[in-house]
């Protein structure tokens, strides 16, 4: 049975212009690791700031533990913590940065031990780093200190905005491990934005895809942006960079974006003649540790598609990197995102 910690209803956000986020209904379960991926400008950070109760939504609401909440609401304030992509440290020592969250919670006992543990979770030692000031830290170290400050308070929810984007390999590995530890030690609900597909597919219980402010569960639905033009067969069509056409039923607007369900098997539509194919090259295989399935990345023109499939189908269809394969879709079953 699902146990949502967040209940999002009709959530919309905008900044002096058209909406940049539009999520009709979404629940996020307690104790799960949810990954969010999508191109720049798709609304990922906006969404995470709203989940962190930093910003006030333009419309709609976010329920937290079945109660409405907003910035400075008491029940999520001490439970939810957010690590921005470029976190700012306070102009004080690493030790004082990490214990800030503890102090404002009124925790006075075992501060040294808690700070030491939090620093060790991100691979930093108290002896070497505790007395340092922010200017004496590298970018990766600063990011890890910022994460340690969040880990020190044993959060119920940990929101991470591209935490490994600007750090070295070691820091990235430590950050990933710390996020994993938070879930296993304290049953923390972790929501992470990342372009690191490998991390998301390997470590997340669920992956959300975002595009133009919309969010949906990653499956085999893939984004095909417009512009669309009418074609001779009554469908509409857009051209990929390699010249292939992608067909779809008439869009609501020529610049709408299509969500196309792709498959390695021909979908059963009742009318086989309506099924179309796209030639694409397999570029990467990632194992989803939780399900045992494999996410196959494919390149068609300049678009990257992802289709999740079983290991047996990988072998059966020889879906190995470098191989060209046809992926199928039904133009009549396209969903539309309107900007």
């Amino acid at each position, binding site marked *: 049975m699902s146990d949502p910690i967040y209940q999002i209803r009709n959530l919309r956000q905008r900044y002096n212009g058209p909406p940049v986020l539009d999520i009709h209904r979404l629940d996020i379960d307690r104790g799960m690791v949810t990954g969010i991926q999508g191109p720049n400008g798709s609304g990922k950070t906006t969404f995470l700031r709203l989940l962190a109760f930093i910003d006030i939504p333009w419309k709609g609401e976010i329920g937290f533990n079945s109660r409405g909440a907003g910035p400075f609401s008491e029940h999520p304030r001490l439970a939810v913590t957010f690590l921005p992509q470029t976190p700012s440290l306070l102009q004080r020592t690493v030790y004082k940065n990490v214990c800030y969250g503890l102090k404002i919670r009124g925790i006075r006992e075992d501060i040294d031990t808690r700070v030491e543990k939090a620093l060790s979770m991100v691979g930093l030692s108290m002896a070497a780093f505790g007395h340092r000031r922010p200017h004496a830290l590298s970018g990766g170290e600063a990011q890890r200190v910022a994460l340690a400050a*969040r880990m020190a308070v044993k959060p119920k929810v940990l929101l991470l905005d591209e935490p490994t984007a600007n750090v070295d390999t070691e820091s990235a590995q430590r950050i990933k491990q710390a996020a994993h530890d938070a879930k296993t030690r304290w049953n923390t609900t972790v929501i992470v934005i990342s372009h690191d597909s490998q991390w998301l597919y390997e470590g997340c219980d669920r992956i959300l895809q975002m595009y133009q402010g919309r969010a949906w569960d990653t499956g085999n639905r893939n984004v095909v942006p417009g512009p669309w033009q009418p074609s001779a067969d009554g469908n509409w069509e857009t051209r990929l960079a390699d010249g292939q056409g992608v067909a779809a039923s008439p869009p609501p607007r020529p610049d709408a974006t299509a969500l196309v369900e792709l498959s390695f098997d021909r979908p059963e539509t009742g009318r086989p003649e309506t099924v179309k194919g796209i030639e694409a090259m397999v570029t990467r295989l990632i194992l989803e540790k939780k399900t045992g399935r494999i996410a196959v990345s494919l390149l068609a023109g300049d678009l990257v598609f992802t289709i999740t499939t079983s290991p047996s189908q990988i072998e059966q269809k020889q879906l190995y990197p470098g191989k060209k394969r046809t992926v199928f879709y039904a133009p009549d079953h396209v969903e539309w995102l309107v900007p």
Partner: protein
Amino acid sequence: MEFIAEGFVKAVVLLLQGDAETWSAIVVTLRVTMLSMTASLLLGIPLGFLLGYQPFAGRRQIRMVVDTLLFLPTVFVGLLVYAFISSRGPLGEAGLLFTVPGIAVGQTILALPIVMSLAASATEETAGRLRVTLMSLGANRRQLFLTSLWETRQGIVAAGLVACGRVMTEVGISMMVGGNIKWHTRTITTAIALETNKGLFAMGIALGMVLMVIAFSVNLGAMLLKRK
């Protein structure tokens, strides 16, 4: 060049011998600076912080006015204060003309926009940057306000330093409102101007050296404060 070198030698002698006239100007300068800086910091820090911290209707307009006041010429401030506190002015009965408090009033008007503007800029930068960090660590509104204020301390110290430098080195207000009265309202800068006009460089150089020592001490104190 010789007279300049002689001036330096005589300056050292004047200071070491404790020349009463020289030390009188130093004491008056310190008193005036202390008064005006206390007033401008007490008013300017909270006002500047609020101006940079809290969005409200008319904030940009107020900010524009404050920034414009940064360009106030000291003689114009002196003129206005003189007009208000002279016997014909609305505050004539306060008896502030040609007094140390009178000069301090003028210098406060000079320093206040500097403190406000620079404190507001520092707050805008720091509080904006830290808001997400502090909220995401669980700060409530009061904790957010107080921590932002503390984290802005370096910018506020810098604002105080700039204002202090402007106050200590201005001539116009001290001359017009204070009247440059020996033993009473003669400050370091008005004394330098007067002595130079008389061709007596030694006292001017001595006072200039003292001004630099005071400036160095203020900066040293500020640097120590920033480290905390």
